[in-house]
C-alpha cells in the first residue's frame, strides 16, 4: 500500500487495465488495418464502428481488470457480452417511487439519474449505489489517464 510511485506495481488495477487495453487495441488494428492518412478511404460508418470498438474495448478491459468483485463491473461485462451476442439488450428495472416530500422526491430523482449513469446501478439500493459509484469513478479516472498516455505516445511517435 505504501509502494513508491516510481516502481510500477504489476498487479495494480492500472497495469492490468493497460495490458488488456493495449492487447485489444493491437487486435483491433490487426483486424482493421488503416494507414495514417486514410481518413478519406474509410467511410464514416466504418470510423464510427471502429470508435465504438475502441470504446468498448476500453470499458471491457477495465471491467476485466476489476473482475467480478464489483457490481458495476459485472453489469458492464454482462452488457458487453450481450451487445456482442445480439446487438444490445438493455435491461431496465424501474426504481422505486418515493412517497416523501418534494425535496426528497427531487433527491430520489437524482439518485435514479445516477443509477442510469453507473453501470448496473438499476438494481441496487442507494447505499450500494454510492459505493459502486466511488469505485467506478476511481476506475474511470485510471482509464482516462492510461488512454491519454497512449494517445500521447501514439501522437509523438507518428
Amino acid at each position, binding site marked *: 500500500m505504501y509502494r513508491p510511485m516510481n516502481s510500477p506495481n504489476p498487479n495494480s488495477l492500472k497495469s492490468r487495465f493497460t495490458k488488456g487495453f493495449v492487447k485489444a*487495441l493491437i487486435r483491433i488494428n490487426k483486424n482493421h488495418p488503416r494507414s*495514417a492518412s486514410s*481518413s*478519406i478511404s*474509410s467511410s*464514416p460508418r466504418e*470510423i*464510427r464502428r*471502429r*470508435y465504438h470498438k*475502441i*470504446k468498448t474495448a*476500453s*470499458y471491457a478491459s477495465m471491467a476485466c481488470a476489476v473482475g467480478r468483485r464489483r457490481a458495476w463491473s459485472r453489469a458492464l461485462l454482462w452488457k458487453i457480452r450481450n451487445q456482442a451476442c445480439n446487438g444490445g439488450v438493455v435491461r431496465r428495472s424501474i426504481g422505486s417511487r418515493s412517497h416523501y416530500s418534494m*425535496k426528497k422526491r*427531487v*433527491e430520489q430523482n*437524482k*439518485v435514479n*439519474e*445516477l443509477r442510469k*449513469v*453507473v453501470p448496473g446501478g438499476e438494481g441496487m439500493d*442507494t*447505499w450500494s449505489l*454510492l*459505493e459502486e*459509484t*466511488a469505485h*467506478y*469513478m*476511481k476506475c*474511470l*479516472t485510471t*482509464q*482516462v489517464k492510461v*488512454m*491519454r498516455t*497512449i*494517445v*500521447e505516445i*501514439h*501522437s*509523438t511517435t507518428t
Partner: protein
Amino acid sequence: MQPCSREMQEMNSLLNASASASQLSLQDHHHLQQQQSHSHSSQMHPQTPNPSASHFDSATHDDFLEQMLSTLGPSWASAADDAPPPPSSNPDNVVFSYDDSATLSSKFRSQQISAGSGANKSASASAAAAAAMMLQHQLMMSRSGAADSGFSPMGLSLRNNGDFDRSNSDVGDVSSFKSPNTGGGDGASSVQSLFNGFGGSLHGAANSQSPNFHHPQGGQLLAQNYGGAGAAMNQAPAGGSAGAAPAQPKPRVRARRGQATDPHSIAERLRRERIAERMKALQELVPNANKTDKASMLDEIIDYVKFLQLQVKVLSMSRLGGAAAVAPLVADMSSEGGGDCIQASANGGTRGRSSNGNQTASSSNDNSMTVTEHQVAKLMEEDMGSAMQYLQGKGLCLMPISLATAISTATCHSRNPLLQNSNNNPVIPSNGGDGPSSPSMSVLTVQSATMGNGGVEGSVKDATSVSKP
C-alpha cells in the same frame, strides 16, 4: 440486579439437581452441560491476549458473525444431540462436550479481550466484543457459585466492556427494561449492563418468565440474540447512532433522549447516516466539490461521472485521427448528451472582443485562439452540436477546465501558452516557449465573458477549455 441474582440461584439449584436430569428439558440439559464444562474450563484458561485477534480484525463483522455461528452451531448441535441421556451418562456427555465449549470459551474470551482493548477502533470490534460477551456472559451465568477465583478474572474482563455499557446506557435506553446501573457491585452491574445491551425486549421477556423457565429462555435468548445481533450488526456497520460512543460493544443502536425508538425510525436514521457518510467519501473524490446539500452533491457526482465517460469517448475517438472524419461522430456524441458534462456558461461571449476581428489562425496562435473562442462561445449558445462540430473542424476538442489544468501541469512537453480571452482577465503564464507544432496538447482556457470583473478562477464548472489534440 435482582434478576441477576435470581438467575444465579436458579442455576445453582439446577446444578445441584443435576441428578434428576431426566426431568429437565432439552435446553436445560444443554445448559447443564455448558455449566459443568465451563466450570472446568474457566479454571484452566488464563486470560492472555491471543494472536487470533489478527484474524479477527481482518474479517468483517458479517464474516465474523458467520464464523461464530458456524463454530457455535456444531457445538450446540452436538450437545443437543446427546440429550437427554440418562443421568448416569452425564459425565460422559460432559466430557464429550468439554472440548468444544472449552475451546469456544477460550476463543471467545481471548477475542473479547482483544476486542475490548481495541473496541474503540472499529465497529467490527464492537460487534465481536458484543457477541463474545454474550457467550461469555452466558457461560458465566451458568457457572456454579463455587468458583470464585474464576469469577474475578471474568469479572475483570467484563468490567471493561461493562464500562462501555454503563456509559452508553446512561444516555438512554431502547428497551423497556430499566438499567440498574446506579450502583451495586461491579460484577453484577456490569453483568446487568451486559443484559441491557442485548435487547431489552428479549431480556424483559426472559425476566418476566417464571424462574423455572429461565434456562430454556436462556438458550433461546442466546439464539435470538445472535439473530438480532446479526440483523442489527448488518444494519449498523458504521457504528451506533448519535449520542452513543461509536465504540459501543453492543449491536443495537441507542436512541437519543426524546426521540422515537421504534425500529423503523432507527433503521431509517441509520440508513441516512450511512448514505451521508458515503456521500462525504464521494465528495472527496470529485474535484472542486463543496457540499452544500445532498441534491447538489448528487448533481456534481452525476456530472463528474458523465464527464469521465465523455473523456473516455473522446480519447477513444482521438486515436482515429483526422478531424474531418470525426466531425460526424462528434455531432452524434454531443447529441448523446455529452453537452451535459461540459459545464459551459456561454452567456454571451461577444462583449468587447470584436477588436480581435477576423484574424486568421495562421497569424499567431494567440489571436487564432481568441477568434476561435469567440466563435465557440457564440455557437455554444445556440447549439452544442454545432459548436462541437466547429471545434472538430479546427481539430480542437472541448473539455472542462480541470482536465485542462491537469494536462497542462502534468505533462512536460513544451506547450503553447494559456490564454484568457477576456480583456479584463489576467493571462495565465505558459509552461514553456512556443513549441513547434508539437503533437502534445495545448490548452486554452475559454472564459465566458460574463464571468464579470473578477473570477478568473471562477467556478471550475463555469469554464470551458479548448484543447488541440
